[in-house]
């Protein structure tokens, strides 16, 4: 069973998701990965 986390604290949740998710951005490009995730969050709060 996959481990569960609480991602709802900022910025620790953002950093954790940026580290764990499989994204189309290399893992070493941390800022770009965080911006990608934040872009999703910005869209999802407006759905």
């Amino acid at each position, binding site marked *: 069973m*996959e*481990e*569960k*986390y*609480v*991602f*709802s*604290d*900022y*910025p620790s*949740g*953002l950093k954790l*998701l940026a580290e*764990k*998710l*499989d*994204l189309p951005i290399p893992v070493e490009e941390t800022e770009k990965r965080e911006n990608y995730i*934040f872009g*999703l*969050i*910005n*869209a*999802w*709060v*407006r*759905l």
Partner: protein
Amino acid sequence: MQNVKELEKYRIGLFRDACSMTHKPDRTPNVSYMVTWKILDAGYKLTEALSDYDIMTKVVREHQDKYNFDGIIEMGVRNQYLISEYFGAGRYIVDDKTESVNFRDIPLCESEGLRIFADNPQKFMWEQGMGKMYSFWNKPNDVAFFQKAIEINNGFFKYAYAMADTMRNEYGLPTNVAPNPIAQTAIEFFFQTMRGIKGLSMDMRHDPGLLDAAIEAWNETFFNPQLTAMKAAKAGPSDAACFDSTNVLLAHIILNTKQWEKYYWKYLKQVLDVQRDKNWSVRFFAEDKISRFWDYLSEYPRGMLTIHPDNDDIFEARKKFPTFALMGGMKLSTLGMGSKQECLDLAKRLIDELGAEGGYVMCEDKMGSYRSDANAENLKAVCDFVREYRPSQN
């Protein structure tokens, strides 16, 4: 015209000539503003099409096969239903019995939330916004849950791009608006998403200082960078789209003149100034009525704006704006309840009075949502008429 590339070019030319008000177009361009109506018209249930992109693709194809528009504003992307359902947000209320799509209004915060936003917009979005929208957010989740969410999210955009490509490459149907950046004003975000009608109305009266601080935070984080991106975008008309940019207004409906100037016009003017400097052709759509603020638009140059009224009288708009193109005016109430002849009479009047020499784009006055919004035979008759009608030859 068999060649789809030629057809796409011809159609873009119709828009560019009509909207620039410098050349008379070969004929009036005709745009579809039918949204969920086209799902019902194609014989599908709303839930079927909203949750299956293959079905939505058939819907959009059938819409074009049947009516042969020059542009379609909405190609099945209005409602991001699947991701919302995956998150269990309950945001959409889709009812196949009543054939309706409703949207549950969920303001992200109470007035105190403005203070958190003003201090740190990112922290607000992450903690307050997501927490308010989604009950899963504050509970433990595995990474796979978010991985799947990204997959669903990407699926939506994959559909959107593929649909646009299909319509362009197989039907010669141009992209409606070029993919230029746009800056969203704070007041629209606060109105539509963060505070809602009631909340924002109270904020403007009870604590304008706090609202100002939140607007400043919005501008620093979102509006100003977006405006910078607009300024960096390519100038001049796109040769691959009907319009270069679009402004859609909603929050103006609750504002008096003083509030409009302070909260809206100050920022909208910055957007319009960039659009003018870029020589972009802009579709300007305002929900409900905005005629009490029309004077503010008069300073912009001939042919820059195409005004698409919602509940304002389009013939009054022609008197007010002799140098802007107009779009819309084909009343859903007539398409839905009128006779075929009444629809054709209205279509002829719109073209003759608003754009016999150019300066008019045929389109419905509102989003077509319900089955009763149009009788399919009426819509077909109007589309056939617009395609053949040349005022100067009659």
